[in-house]
């Protein structure tokens, strides 16, 4: 492949020429678990989000969250206006209600602000009666399965 194959070839050379941009300090990174279920109203879902410190696996607090969503197959036309979450009962837990435009795979865009600034993407498949993991390959232009 033109782009990516060449990238590896040139990487050694390029590393020598260019400089390390990011100094990776021991910053806090977020780990995010998302679970959604339908509310009963069409295209409306309630999501529970659990925030963890990726290193210590402890709940991450003092962070404000917004949740937006894009459709990977049409990233700009189909998107959901970001919604602020409400803080849940346990530390690090957040709750949010989102309304989608159609069923299918959505990339939830979870933005963290406050103590930690970060963005986490979760791709889920939203169906009428449940929400499951998105399987990119099951997205069938492959009409014919033998």
């Amino acid at each position, binding site marked *: *492949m*033109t*782009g*990516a194959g*060449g*990238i*590896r070839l040139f*990487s050694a050379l*390029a*590393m020598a020429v*260019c*400089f*390390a*941009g*990011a100094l*990776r300090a021991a*910053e806090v990174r977020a780990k995010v678990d998302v679970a959604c279920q339908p509310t009963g109203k069409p295209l409306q879902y309630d999501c529970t989000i659990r925030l963890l410190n*990726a290193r210590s696996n402890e709940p991450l607090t003092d962070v404000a969250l*917004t949740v*937006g969503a*894009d459709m*990977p*197959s*049409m*990233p*700009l*036309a189909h998107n959901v*206006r*970001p919604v602020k979450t409400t803080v849940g009962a346990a530390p690090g837990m957040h709750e949010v209600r989102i309304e989608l*435009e*159609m069923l299918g*795979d959505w*990339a939830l*865009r979870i*933005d963290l602000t406050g103590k930690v*600034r*970060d*963005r986490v*993407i979760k*791709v889920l498949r939203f169906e009428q009666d449940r929400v499951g993991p998105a399987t*990119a*390959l099951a*997205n069938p232009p492959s009409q014919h399965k033998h």
Partner: protein
Amino acid sequence: MDDYLIGVLSNIGVISFLALSAYLLLLTGEISFGQQAFFAIGGYAAGIATALWGWSLTAALLWGAATGAAAAVLVGVPTLRLHGLYFAIATLAFAEMMRILFELFHYQISIDGEWVGPDGSDGFRNIRYIFENDVGPVQFLALIYGLLAAAVGGFMLLERSRLGVAFRMIGEDEVLAEMHGVAVARHKVLAAGLAGAIAGIGGGLYAHMTTYVEPRIFDVMLGVHSLAYGLIGGLGTAFGPLLGVLIDIGVLESIRTFAGFRMIIFGGLVAALLIFRPRGLLDECVVHRIAGAWLRVWGWILRSASRPAGGGR
């Protein structure tokens, strides 16, 4: 500024690069369904550069532009003698090939005990440069629009240069251009390469803006959209495709209340617009008229300025 507004404006800015890329080829008379491939290549290349190799954003964006241009030249040479629908379908085939290759592309390295890098059809997450380097959303927005202004400025210069005239001549009639001494083949490959570079920069910005790319993003829909922008906004000036993006995303945002009917309304609007203005809102005639009016106004200002200050006869 409202975060949401920043998000929408960033989207408009980034997608404008893709629209400009398709527009450049439209100038030379070619319809490309495949500019999203160079957008994807630029996005992956720039994302790999910052996330995996620790490059600076500047170097990564240049690298994205370079890979986009290189790939575009590689496709441009064999498709040189194709025109119209044949060229359009060949670029479509190439873009879909690239999309599937990205689905098969795995290149991950472990950074701080976490695997980072393109992971086939699961995509490429954690392109976290703007978070690691504390680039705020407004700063990134400024970067996007700074680069976009540079690109549009480049187009303005191009339209006034011999090169721009040569591009439009080829677009009007290739044989006639050749007879007038324009090296058609070289100019077309150059146009393809420039268009690839513009798309590549856009891709690099996109990857860093969303922090995540996956092959599905770069499908035919994106390519046809980027082509449509030029036609909706107008083929007379580089502001045409930008207007097209603004209309698309702006109108889509403003008819949110119609929820499920948005695409029905929007599709109908575009179809109706194209009936009345088949070369877009800012087509060559409108641009010509605006330029003429501007010249008249400018001439009037100059004349009144050159009159003696006392004003008496």
